[in-house]
């Protein structure tokens, strides 16, 4: 059995050897060359295009130009309160129907508080130069006025040393009819600016003159528009403040009456002097509150029957 297997193995080896002996065929040389050439062609590196030397500086310059133009565009399209107070023209959307007169009128209205300051300053005995009396940026006028008043109050003996600037303003404001008129004009101006004219686009938040919803107020507040008139409210007399829809007369922690810009959808549009409980509570989530109003002695107090009506958001228990 093993001999038979060995024979078979030997035979297989001989067959294999014979086969290999007869297998000497080779591919022709021209085929070898053709195949090798094809392999070389297939891996021939593709020459990379070199970047031109000006590519990098040009791209940097393009990025810089784009950035600068974008920044300047943003600055142009979003003016701040400081832009307005610096005397720059308002970037309100010009209404084609109203024309240039309306824009000019609005600019005059903005400048009017400066005139009020001038009048008040003259009444309080402070001499100001023509340059200062001329229409100035609102912020500068207010700050300057407040600083000077504080200095004046500190220097001259006062029967009411604790009197606040606000109450002083009230006193002075009520004493002078012209000042009252100016203040009322400012209140009207505020109302005009906030109440949208029929058929015109108002640059101010829509909630101002209407029964605005909380959502609208919130949305507009986020845009930061309502903060533009905060300074204007401070300029009002208490009486004018009570008539202004955009402002609310409130008693602060120091028991001093201050005219604040409306801070929520409830007091926005609420005229403290004339609006009723019903008109307040007609707004969703608002409650009418009549807070006690105490005035310092010897002052022409605005509090009517010692009550100061407020329209506030309902407090969630």
């Amino acid at each position, binding site marked *: 059995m093993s001999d038979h297997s060995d024979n078979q193995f030997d035979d297989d080896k001989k067959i294999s050897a014979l086969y290999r002996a007869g*297998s000497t065929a080779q591919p022709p040389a021209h085929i070898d060359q053709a195949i090798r050439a094809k392999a070389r062609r297939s*891996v021939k590196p593709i020459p990379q295009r070199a970047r031109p030397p000006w590519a990098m500086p040009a791209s940097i310059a393009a990025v810089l130009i784009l950035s600068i133009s974008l920044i300047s565009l943003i600055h142009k399209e979003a003016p701040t309160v400081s832009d307005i107070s610096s005397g720059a023209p308002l970037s309100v959307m010009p209404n084609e129907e109203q024309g240039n007169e309306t824009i000019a009128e609005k600019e005059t209205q903005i400048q009017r508080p400066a005139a009020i300051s001038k009048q008040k300053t003259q009444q309080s005995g402070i001499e100001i130069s023509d340059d200062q009396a001329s229409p100035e940026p609102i912020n500068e006028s207010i700050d300057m006025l407040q600083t000077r008043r504080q200095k004046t109050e500190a220097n001259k003996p006062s029967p009411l040393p604790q009197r606040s600037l606000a109450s002083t303003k009230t006193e002075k404001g009520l004493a002078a009819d012209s000042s009252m008129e100016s203040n009322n004009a400012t209140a009207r101006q505020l109302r005009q600016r906030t109440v949208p004219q029929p058929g015109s686009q108002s640059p101010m938040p829509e909630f101002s003159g209407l029964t605005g919803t909380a959502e609208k107020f919130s949305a507009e507040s986020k845009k930061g528009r309502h903060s533009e008139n905060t300074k204007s409210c401070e300029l009002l007399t208490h009486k004018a403040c009570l008539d202004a829809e955009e402002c609310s007369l409130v008693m602060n922690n120091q028991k001093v009456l201050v005219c604040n810009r409306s801070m929520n959808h409830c007091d926005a549009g609420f005229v403290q002097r004339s609006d009723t409980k019903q008109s307040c509570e007609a707004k969703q989530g608002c409650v009418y509150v009549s807070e006690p109003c105490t005035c310092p002695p010897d002052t022409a107090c605005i509090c009517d029957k010692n009550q100061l009506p407020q329209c506030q958001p309902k407090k969630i228990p």
Partner: protein
Amino acid sequence: MIHDNNDENLMLRFSHGDVAAFDVLYERHRAPLFRYILKKTRHNNALTEELFQEVWSNLIRAREQYQPSARFSTYLFQIARNRIIDHVRRVSVRPVSDPETNHEDIANANNHDPDRHAHSVECIEQLQAHISRLPDEQHETFILKYEGEHNLGHIAEITGVTLETAKSRLRYAMKKLRELMPEECL
């Protein structure tokens, strides 16, 4: 230059653009592949050259897709086998044996000993004739075993059969050749 020069590494190098690696691979496999195709086409030289070029062209074209999941020679012979099958399907004619075409091969073998030469040539001719008459499966298995120097596992992989089937085909082929070959040749 080429340190780790097994077939698979050479092919990977070629796929990354190393032409020298291809030259080594080609030199290593050109003759066995050519003879495999030659035997499969039953010594049709023109067809063999055409298919031989096609196989290498396919390999060059698909070099970037090469994955060393199998032995390179298995991969190469699979391409060759598929090309031959495609050709047979295309012409729908079984390759015709042409034993006369391999006289040159036989004449080239053992030509250093004139006495043995005549005997060997005769034996080789007989062997070639018997091999060409083998059934296709056995014929292919025999060529892959002795031409491509593949083991049975690789033959099974190339031909797409089980190891047992490949082993069985080779056993039958060898048995038949032993029976047919004259004793003086063995």
